[in-house]
């Protein structure tokens, strides 16, 4: 079975299990796939689903980008400098363990119920986990290869982009993957608590009407988008990064 068929097969099993349970339970609290699809089509053509999705995705994208750039930067600094690492290690552990909800509430209280406060809250939640992964990568960077760069007097930017950074790519990819799923979950909470648009806000509204099919329709929409991102962006990137690294010796 090719990997694509394998994945489709798993999806079909998941869908039929769902459908089977729905028939068995036969309750409005556990809507069947058809009702969810109906709801999806309804919200889709109403228009507000697309709007909310795009609003949430924009927030995810912005906070993801900021968190990755800052996290990679801080991680590299902490991984390469022992002194800075010692100084900021405790800070990092504190940052890792502050509940997401606390940062969100504090950001809203301090900066008001504004867009920037929402983004900031997400970024603060995400940065520490990126830092932890990148720091590990930067710690085990191959000094022998850096010495090659030194001997051949490579410029600083060449050394960084062609010798240093490629060694971190697997770590960056791993934190990006983990990051995307974490961020979109946090974004929903942020929206639920203090925004008047986005998927999180919509879910809250649907919850108040006990519209379970609607909640599942939104979830379905979002997961489809994540799957598309995984297949169109992450998998090809994986392949790009793996070039040269996984070949067997001739």
């Amino acid at each position, binding site marked *: 079975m090719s990997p694509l068929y394998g994945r489709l097969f798993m999806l079909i099993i998941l869908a039929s299990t769902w459908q089977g349970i729905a028939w068995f339970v036969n309750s409005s609290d556990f809507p069947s796939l058809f009702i969810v699809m109906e709801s999806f089509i309804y919200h889709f053509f109403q228009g507000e689903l697309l709007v909310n999705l795009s609003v949430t995705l924009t927030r995810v994208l912005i906070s993801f980008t900021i968190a990755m750039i800052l996290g990679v930067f801080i991680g590299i600094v902490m991984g390469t400098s022992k002194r800075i690492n010692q100084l900021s290690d405790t800070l990092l552990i504190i940052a890792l363990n502050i509940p997401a909800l606390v940062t969100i509430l504090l950001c809203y209280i301090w900066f008001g119920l504004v867009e920037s406060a929402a983004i900031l809250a997400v970024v603060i939640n995400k940065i520490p986990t990126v830092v932890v992964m990148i720091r590990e990568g930067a710690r085990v960077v191959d000094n022998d290869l850096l*010495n*090659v760069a030194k*001997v051949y007097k490579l410029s600083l930017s060449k050394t960084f982009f062609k010798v240093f950074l490629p060694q971190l790519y697997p770590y960056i990819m791993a934190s990006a993957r983990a990051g995307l799923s974490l961020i979109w979950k946090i974004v929903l909470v942020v929206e639920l608590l203090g925004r008047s648009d986005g998927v999180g806000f919509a879910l809250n509204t649907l919850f108040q009407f006990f519209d379970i099919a609607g909640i599942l329709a939104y979830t379905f929409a979002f997961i489809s988008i994540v799957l598309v991102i995984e297949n169109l962006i992450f998998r090809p990137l994986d392949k790009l990064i793996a*070039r040269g690294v996984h070949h067997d*010796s001739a």
Partner: protein
Amino acid sequence: MIALDIAIKNKYYANSTAVVLKDIQFSVKPGEFVAIIGPSGSGKTTLLNMLSGLEDATAQKLLGNSKSLHDCKEYQLGYVFQQPRLMPWLTVNENIQLVLPTAQERKIKTLLAQVGLADKGDYYPKQLSGGMQRRVAIARAFAVNPELILLDEPFNSLDAPTAAKLRLLLVNLCKSCGSTVVFVTHDLSEAIYLADRIIFMSNSPSSIIHQVNVNLPKPRKESGSTELAWQSQLMAQYPQILSGSVSTD
């Protein structure tokens, strides 16, 4: 081409008081091929790293053309390490291009042809055998038109025919490039085959115990009769020389 004038009083291991190198003094003429032989652990790699600027060499005298080796950024250095040290994420072409300041496709092509890898430019290092990777590392060292080239047991752990092929390759490249060469090895016959002069080092803390000019005509032969005769004469004179001693008992 560069002339070296080296005087190292005391070189300690990093963060330690153990002496690696003691009273090392030698000079190298422009274009000369010098081989350094010593028992393992005698600090040969440390010496090369000091010449290349990877090891701290403050308070030591390392002169290239009468100027401090590490001050003049102008001269070109090629270094072939014990391991090929190619970037696994770059193709062979890109690995060589990496050390060149400008794009020089034709030059890379010629070099790869010289080392017998003309059709391997788009391969990644992991797709090549160990011997091929070393050839790429040698091509990379010569790509920068080095005035000084350092080689640290580059043919270690290769099978004999491959090593012989690479030695011949090195001879040819040196001939066409005219660089000054410092070549570290523990293989005497390899040194005799390649070098103009051999420097023997003692056990740690290492100092120079003997220097000898290899006054045999070039091109030489791997294990040719004159080369072997020369070697056995040296060994008869100093039977302990490869273990780091010139005592005659």
